């Protein structure tokens, strides 16, 4: 018993306390932003943010004056469009990578990994010129295409790793029962990796929602995603930190919630390849 208590104390000192310190560092800035956004603008510079006097006024002003609703709709259309493009193109490719042997397979698979590593600045300039020539600047399409440059390679990798986790014998069994290859893929494999597809889709959604530089370069007056709106606000409402932090919280909210929902599965998929490799 005495031994048990001693080791609990030791655990608290060596594990719980350091962990709390790291968590404080991790969550502190976010909580500070949340607290600031709930403090009335007048008292922000006199007393500073406190937990005892929380108000919604900053959020009310945000939606009344800044017009965040339209920006969120833009972000939503772009992110959802990117998810559709990314998933439709990558699911069949991932099935192919997972189930067949063919020439250049390694090279092709590696190519998708490499794309993710190229500097964004290398793509952003030509994409701007291209969209300008096509007259697509300031449209949702331009931003969906731009975000797909990140989404497609990523989801090909994720989906390949998910499908690899489903035994090949299942396809074979379905084909013995009279399914063609494509039917086996559609009716057996896809339903089985639905959780993986959903996790990948949500990750693409978050990435596209959070994306900023493409949105800034290829967007404009008509299409202005939330990230650009937040950044513009920083310029316009320079010292109104209550309003600014409220914008930050709202802008980050959808991504944060979605992420907490899928983080388990997603982290599993992401780390699998690295651990095995």
């Amino acid at each position, binding site marked *: 018993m005495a031994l048990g208590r001693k080791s609990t104390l030791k*655990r608290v000192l060596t594990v719980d306390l*350091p*962990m709390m310190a*790291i968590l404080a*560092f991790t969550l502190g*800035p*976010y909580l500070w*932003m949340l607290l*600031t956004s709930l403090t009335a603008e007048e008292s922000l*510079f006199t007393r*500073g943010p406190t937990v005892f006097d929380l108000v919604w006024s900053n959020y009310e002003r945000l939606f009344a004056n800044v017009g965040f609703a339209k920006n969120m709709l833009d972000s939503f259309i772009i992110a959802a469009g990117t998810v559709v493009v990314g998933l439709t*193109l*990558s699911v*069949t490719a991932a*099935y*192919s990578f997972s*189930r067949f042997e*063919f020439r250049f397979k390694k090279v*092709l698979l590696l190519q*998708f990994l490499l*794309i993710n590593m*190229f*500097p*964004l*600045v*290398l*793509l*952003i*300039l*030509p*994409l701007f010129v*291209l969209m300008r020539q096509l007259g697509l600047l300031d449209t949702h399409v331009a931003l969906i*295409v*731009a975000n797909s*440059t990140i989404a*497609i*390679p990523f989801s090909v990798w994720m989906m390949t790793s998910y499908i690899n986790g489903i035994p090949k014998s299942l396809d074979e069994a379905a084909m013995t029962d009279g399914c*063609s290859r494509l039917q086996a893929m559609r009716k057996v494999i896809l339903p089985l990796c639905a959780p993986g597809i959903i996790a990948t889709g949500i990750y693409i959604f*978050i990435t596209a929602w*959070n994306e*900023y*530089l493409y949105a800034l370069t290829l967007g404009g007056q008509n299409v202005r995603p*939330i990230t*650009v709106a*937040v*950044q513009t606000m920083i310029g316009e409402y320079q010292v109104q*930190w209550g309003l*600014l932090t409220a*914008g*930050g919280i709202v802008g*980050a909210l959808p991504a*944060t919630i*979605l*992420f*907490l929902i899928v*983080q388990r599965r997603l*982290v599993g998929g*992401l780390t699998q390849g*690295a651990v095995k*490799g």
Partner: protein
Amino acid sequence: MTSIPVPEQTGSSPGRGTALWRQVMPLALLSPAVLVTLAIVFFPMVQTAWMSLHEYVLFRPKNFDWVGLQNYLNVFQDEVFWISLRHTVLWIAITVPAQALLGLATALLLNQQFPWRPIARALIIIPWALPSVVIALMWTWIYDSNYGILNDLLLRIGILETSIPWLANPDTALYAIILTLTWQGFPFFAVMILAGLQSIPRSYYEAASLDGASALRQFWHITLPGISGVLFTAILLRTIWVANSMDVIFVMTGGGPGYSTYTLPLYAFLEARTNLNFGYGSALAMTFTLLLLGIVILYLKRSAKAVQ
């Protein structure tokens, strides 16, 4: 499913047709993804290379004059390029190790048994899910010279005597942003390393403690070799990612004050965005990419040797 193009030399007998179909199907399934990436990734990349060989300023769209390697020669005589290069090196050399060490410590803690472990593991990843614009916004507020909490805390503890304008001071701006980026990126290391730690069999540790190995020796001889593969991959991915990331800098300081937070990708981006000089901007982007590629190849070669 029948819309997949059938190649010209479709067999005369049905048997040959199916065999051919079997050969073509994997590629047919791949082709949409491959073709689209060719169109929206590789084609634009080639275009960047092409633009970098021309004099191309966007407000004079008629002029697209071939200048050969002149842009590249200019790059090496450009003082701002060397400043940005120095900052990029500092940026990578501090951020990545800081993220890795903090991530390692976090992963080791998360690998212990304690009651609220699942909550800690879920919360630690939050910075990773936030938009970089929001991250930049909240850290700008933290660093605010008049009302920021950092100055407030440091003044109260007594470390500072007067508040420092962290982002407006050329000596501190870069390091302030490096701290922000460390905060953003260390959860990635923590999660990757944790997965590595969990793949090390318990029996190794049991055997080692039977032999009387201390905790430190166990860490050195079992833990580190066990996670070396993950660590290798994570460092590679993060180096590339940190080198490329410029959105946080762009929002926090825009490269200023002066050139004190310019990194290479940011310089290339600003050159095109504010000066509309797409030719020179492309040359900067290409130079940066080649340098990064060199570092990646060097890293891969060194670590291949280390493994042998």
